[in-house]
């Protein structure tokens, strides 16, 4: 008789336990989750603070120069890498992953290089490699003489498609 009673009893206990457990654990989870969210917020804020400090300290506005890479359409050019020379010295050599190239095509702009330059005239050379029309290897360079003033200088290296010639086009644009 006792054995016959044990089974339903166990089922009942399991059912009660099963019922009680989610409520308790949901409360524990919420409390843990709230702690984690608060902590994450602090880490996110610290990241911003560090990022700003890094720029203030290492690349002050009056000497800062930053070079950005952007891309549109990409029908005639699939970007592999960009090499950057400033005053004949190589300062960046970046190989793009597929994911990064896709981000560029969606409208993302990659800050390829940030550094410091004295006021005055400088020369920037950018070398693009990738797949050109018909999947052929493609290398193209672009040069710009830039005048560095007192404020930060931003250069955009823009890769766009020139449909009329079925060729990619490399445009260098200065931003103030």
């Amino acid at each position, binding site marked *: *008789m006792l054995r016959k009673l044990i089974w339903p009893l166990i089922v009942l206990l399991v059912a009660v336990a099963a019922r009680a457990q989610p409520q308790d654990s949901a409360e*524990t*989870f919420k409390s843990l989750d709230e702690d984690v969210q608060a902590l*994450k917020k602090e880490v996110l804020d610290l990241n911003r603070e560090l990022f700003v400090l890094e720029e203030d*300290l290492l690349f002050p506005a009056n000497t800062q120069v930053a070079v950005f890479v952007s891309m549109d359409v990409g029908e005639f050019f699939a970007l592999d890498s960009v090499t950057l020379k400033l005053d004949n010295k190589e300062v960046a050599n970046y190989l793009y992953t597929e994911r990064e190239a896709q981000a560029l095509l969606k409208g993302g702009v*990659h800050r390829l290089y940030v550094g410091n330059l004295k006021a005055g005239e400088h020369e920037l050379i950018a070398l693009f490699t990738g797949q050109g029309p018909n999947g052929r290897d493609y290398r193209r360079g672009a040069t710009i003489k830039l005048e560095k003033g007192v404020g930060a200088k931003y250069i955009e290296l823009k890769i766009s498609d020139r449909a009329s010639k079925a060729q990619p086009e490399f445009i260098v644009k200065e931003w103030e």
Partner: protein
Amino acid sequence: MAAAPRDTLDATQAARVRSRSRAGLKARLSSKIAIALAASLAAAVGNAREAKVPEQRPVIGTPQVVKDLHWGDVLFYFYQGDYLQALTRLGAAQHYGRLEHHAVEAELLKGGLYLSLGQHEEAGRIFDALLDENVPLDVRNRAWFYLAKVWYQRDYLERAAEALSSIRGALPGDLEPERHLLEAQVLMYLDRYDEAIRVLERWQPAGDGSDPWSQYARFNIGVALVRKGRLDDAAKLLDEVGRSEAPTEELAALKDKANLALGFAWLKADRPADAKAVLQRVRLEGPQSNKALLAVGWADSAEERFTAALAPWLELRGRDVLDAAVQESYLAVPYAYAQLNANQKAVEQYLFAIETFEQESKRIDESIAAIRSGGLLDALVSNDRGEKVGWYWQLKSLPDAPVTRYLYHLLATHEFQEGLKNYRDLKLMERNLAAWSLSVSAFEDMVDARRRAYELRLPKLEHALDTVDLDALEARKNDLESRVKLIEREQDAAALATARELEQWHKLERIEQVLTRADQSDPLVQEMREKTRLLRGRLLWDFNASYKARLWRERKELRELEVAYKEARRRWVLVERAREEYPARTEEFAARVKNLRPKIDSLSTRLAAAAEAHNRYLADIAIKELEAQKERLASYSLQARFALASIYDRAASAGGGAE
């Protein structure tokens, strides 16, 4: 071991058991079906919660045209799913005021990024501040929708419902059906079934209703109707899903779930024939197949067709014993044999079941011990190489380790996945801070370099500042201006003569003086006077002819002088200010850098503690799950022993051994 049950039952007990066993069999079968049904229905409803496409959609405020380079920089990381970087850069760009053309979009994206990082409080605050009447309705609606999604994911159901009710009009594209589905699910989990049903009934999906969202909705409302006891209405919907075309794995899985849920519902309603018909539609190799096979057997069994019942149950016997349905088949097979009076086989199978359950129970003990010794979460995230934080992340595959082997069901649950995501995010953030920690040394070096550079440059700087007399320069400039004005007023063309012209002019004046004192009657003197007059006239002619051009040039040069002077003054002020401010700025940097290390260290410690708390919490629920599995195995084992005793008892009463 085989004799154990018999030894524990005396004749009286055996007689009692025998007298009740037949009457009890049917009742036990019903109760067993009821238990299985409850579990399966719970699973079906649980699965309904998983019935969402976890596909990533663009968050609010994704723009098409980049008007600020730094906005593009944010998007570069956003489009790669690197929300931590995107948010960091967005915050920095806002700090520097570099998102002038994208101010509203930036705030919206920031809200979206906070959502993506599970920061619903922060996201909510941003949306609250931003979503007023000045923001386009479409953007506001999407913001509320995503907010609702995160609150739902984090189990803040009331807030999710509130956010959904803030949506006005329709959402674009696929978001609209998803919103209805979400709303229905939120209401279902708030136990507001009638409202959930009304939401889904109100929503008429476009087209023929064969789109995935509509199928999910039908499934969900079907399950809700079963819970409300409205079986005929539920059957209509679940049957539609169960018969639908399923071109994708996702829909095929949903179709299986619908058939399974309906099958169990029919079984519960004591309509085994109807149950079998729908259960047989479940794919034989799909994730629901074990439950379906078990239930098909119960359907046959309910109609006392035990030979037929054996077919699906024996099929289950060959499957993975970790699955609850497979475990139950270990009891079901001997039960059928016993019903067919194949008692010898039944005894063998019961004994085999008891042994298997014991072995499994020992393995579960090993798993529990492994989890207690730590390392559950590390085993789970060990294969994860991703560097992206966020709530879209999901554990895709499970490592085959002692700690995870029995946790497939648990690991698929929403709660566990959320906890795991938090744990993973905490670990990623620990690594992120460790990387920054290395930069702090570079910052300290940079501050020192600033101090040294200033000390080196200071003497030169002071010399330059001291020797430049800008006031004297200004006085000279003002003097020049006055002179040009005077020349202009008096039309003094000679005043603008070149040095050579002036020399000629003075020479002529000297000659004229000499000639004045000479004998005026001398024809030579007269001739000389005439020549000097002509030369003077010529010079005056030249002065007058070039006067305007010369005056213009003088004015231009004055203007240039003015510009140059102002620039010199500006630079002087800048240098002077730099001399005063540079050391203060360096010390300000030093203070900022000095605070970093303790801050990073403290946060790292807290991150590690929070990760550990998650580890403990998830280990706890994993152990509870395993203990529940052990209890289930123990109860199965008990049933097997009870049934064995019953068979032995019958055999003893019949006066012979088992068959």
